């Protein structure tokens, strides 16, 4: 259900851009107004979301510990999986962000059912790194692709961008030269989608919200590849448009072609969708207390800003209740002290 809707939605977006530009000549709308709007939504939306998260306190220190704690001097602690200092916690966070460390741990349990009646099934575990691989491929390909797109927004193109593009063309085949990142991006998105479709458990939990960004990315990478390798567009014009946008002197050069506008419109949709979607995991990981906090809660006092006093059952009330029984059992009493009130 969700998947069909997502596919139709993205196809609809393609049609809207195509008809808008081809049929109604709305290239200013699709080339200038929508991109600006999308960028504003993206930046303000992401900022608002991050600020919202940042304002909510972490009342307790709740890292998920994945290794030996720091305790006795002769026991080796695991600084990365059980960070004690802020620096170590940062190291852990970075290993998540750049290496997807937790995903790399993935194990898949296999229940081998008993053959004979009366025997128990056995549970074994296989390492399952496919998701890690697909995710790494996708994110790095995405990063390189976005990075080398900076050449459309800079003049002269800075050397890191040029270098990235040169490296990206390491295959040195095709005219124009094949850029690996774009194709890997398309492949990885396809793999992630296939996973969602082919694994029953994943299909069971997947929502429109999961399929839509995948189709959208496919559309973006697909139209990008079409433009570069098959249809061909006026790349100089595209750069003029991009430079116009970035320098707030928007222009719509002639002869860019509808495919470019479709590509741009899908990118705009992604940008505008980003802050309100699960794609915000990109920012959320920096705020996830189980991964960002050091495990030093016994060494360093952590304050909960909304901590409030509670009325607990005091010793005095307890002693009053059990006074006689305690006397009889020879348990020392404490009548002399003034009553403690429930302290915070």
């Amino acid at each position, binding site marked *: 259900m969700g998947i069909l809707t997502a596919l139709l939605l993205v196809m609809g977006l393609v049609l809207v851009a195509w008809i808008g530009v081809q049929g109604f000549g709305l290239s200013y709308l699709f080339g200038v107004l929508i991109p600006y709007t999308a960028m504003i939504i993206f930046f303000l939306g992401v900022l608002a979301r991050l600020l919202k998260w940042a304002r909510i306190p972490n009342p307790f220190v709740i890292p998920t510990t994945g290794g030996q704690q720091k305790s006795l001097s002769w026991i080796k602690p695991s600084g990365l999986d059980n960070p004690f200092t802020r620096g170590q916690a940062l190291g852990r966070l970075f290993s998540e962000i750049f290496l997807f460390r937790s995903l790399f741990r993935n194990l898949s349990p296999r229940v081998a059912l008993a053959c004979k009646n009366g025997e128990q099934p056995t549970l074994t575990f296989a390492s399952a790194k496919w998701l890690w691989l697909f995710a790494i491929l996708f994110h790095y390909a995405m990063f390189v692709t976005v990075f080398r797109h900076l050449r459309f927004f800079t003049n002269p193109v800075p050397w890191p961008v040029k270098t990235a593009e040169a490296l990206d063309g390491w295959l040195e085949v095709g005219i124009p030269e094949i850029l690996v990142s774009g194709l890997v991006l398309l492949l990885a998105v396809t793999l992630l989608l296939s996973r969602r479709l082919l694994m029953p458990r994943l299909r069971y939990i997947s929502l429109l919200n999961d399929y839509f960004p995948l189709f959208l990315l496919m559309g973006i990478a697909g139209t990008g590849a079409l433009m570069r390798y098959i249809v061909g567009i006026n790349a100089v014009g595209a750069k003029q448009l991009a430079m116009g946008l970035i320098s707030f002197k928007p222009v719509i050069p002639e002869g860019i072609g509808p495919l470019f506008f479709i590509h741009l419109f899908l990118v705009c949709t992604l940008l505008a969708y980003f802050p309100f979607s699960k794609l915000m*995991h990109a920012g959320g990981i920096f705020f996830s*207390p189980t991964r960002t906090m050091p495990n030093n809660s016994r060494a360093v006092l952590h304050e909960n800003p909304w901590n409030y006093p509670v009325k607990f059952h005091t010793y005095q009330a307890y002693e009053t*209740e059990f006074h006689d029984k305690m006397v009889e059992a020879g348990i020392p009493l404490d009548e002399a002290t003034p009553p403690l009130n429930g302290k915070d």
Partner: protein
Amino acid sequence: MSDNLPRAEELAPIHLDMPASGWMDTPATLEKGMYCHGVQGKNIKALGMPNPRDWLVEDDDWQLPDDWHHIVMEGLRERLHRFRSLQIFMDICVRCGACADKCHFFIGSGDPKNMPVLRAELLRSVYRHDFTMAGRIMGRMVGARKLTKAVIREWWVYFFQCSECRRCSLFCPYGIDTAEITILGRELLNLLGLNIDWIGAAVAKCHQVGNHIGMEPQTFKESIEFLCDDIEENTGVKIEPSINRKGAEILFVTSSGDFYAEPGIFTCMGYLMLFHQLGLDYTWSTYAAEGGNFGFFTSHEVAKLLNAKMYAEAERLGVKFILGGECGHMWRVIHQYMGTMNGPAGFLETPVSPVTGTRFDHAGSTKAVHICEFTSDLVHQNKIKLDPSRNDHLNVTFHDSCNVARGMGLLDEPRYLIKKACNHFYEMPEETIRERTFCCGSGAGLHAGEDMELRMRGGFPRANAVRTVRDRYDVNTLACICAIDRVAFPALMDYWAPEVGVVGIHELLGNALVMDGETERTLDLRGEELPGKSSPADATEETEGA
């Protein structure tokens, strides 16, 4: 065990296939053996919690307050503002599925709503509906749904089929922690008076009497003295425990499982023997006798309320620091919550071992030391003499308790102690130990009698790993450092891995501990004959041979 518990062979065919109908269209069903009794009115009232009344889970009408919808929605809104964890975990899940098969309840039951991702979606769907624009507009299409009484029922079923073990959180790329979801989900349910009685009753007793089982001070003293008598019979050493003694250096707190029932009491005997041998200046408290904290399975507020006694008592008795026994969630609370909830404990001092002089700086703020840290230090510095051959009849494996593994990281200390106290130690498969350990299936207050099938299903992955080492290395002993483990495992082992006994580490240590003035040991702490220990000559040979 409950009468209607299926045999292991009947539970064994586990299918992890997905049903045909979507999860939102599959209402939660109550299956006997898979849920606990609802909390009784008197136990709700004991702490002045909302909606006290007697109700039955099987009833169609759970007697919710009229404005139940408003109460839950406001409760959720408040918690979204108070817990960054909740807001983040509601917002950033991508449903990648990495957590799906990490949950012992899912592996053991095959119920899709026991996949951590779906357990969270039960709450997230309601969050989307009322707190996100897309959810408000597009509803079901984007996984949003209205909060109905059926949803409350579903929450109740599945938030009490989670043991807050955090295994899923370890594998989640963003660290989304189902324990947080369950803890806060249960908080919301408690706003409507929807706890389970196994938790509610323990909380009420702990609040009023000082421990989960409602043991009064004189009975507590008798229990400890009874254990001391057993020790004397066994070793010839007479121990005089001190209770509620002001001016002691250390307040010792452990979970009621240790002074109440087998096999926990044998661990408790181990503590008593160790402290006596060291001549430790310590005291028990009848008022803050309970280290375990079922409040943590109810709400943060109740957790704080019960935990507050520990510091209050430490201050009243004028001790220098707190030493805590072998317990899982007790240590999650002490380690990650106590300082924040009830500290700072300015009246205590940074713990220093009176025997070795070691400063426990890693506990310098909370001022509470885990007994395994304390004892490891003693053993490392040769302050106690151990004769591991006395445990030669035991082939031991070790279960990492979820809370100390993934909420603290106490992994090597217990192993160090086992290796010093025993000659035969074998690890379970590496995917099931240390930070990847599987829950006993009965954590977070679920070790009642009426939900035995749930417990056996949830405990299956752990038991299967024990069975593996039982068959491979003749393991006959499962060691653990958690009182709930010690209560829950005997039934679980009987069911899936018969002939494996359950011990605490300080029981093993008590067996091995060479005490001043002791008579030749021929019995272990359980009063069972030590093989080859019938005469002193045999014992010497064994030791030399080991």
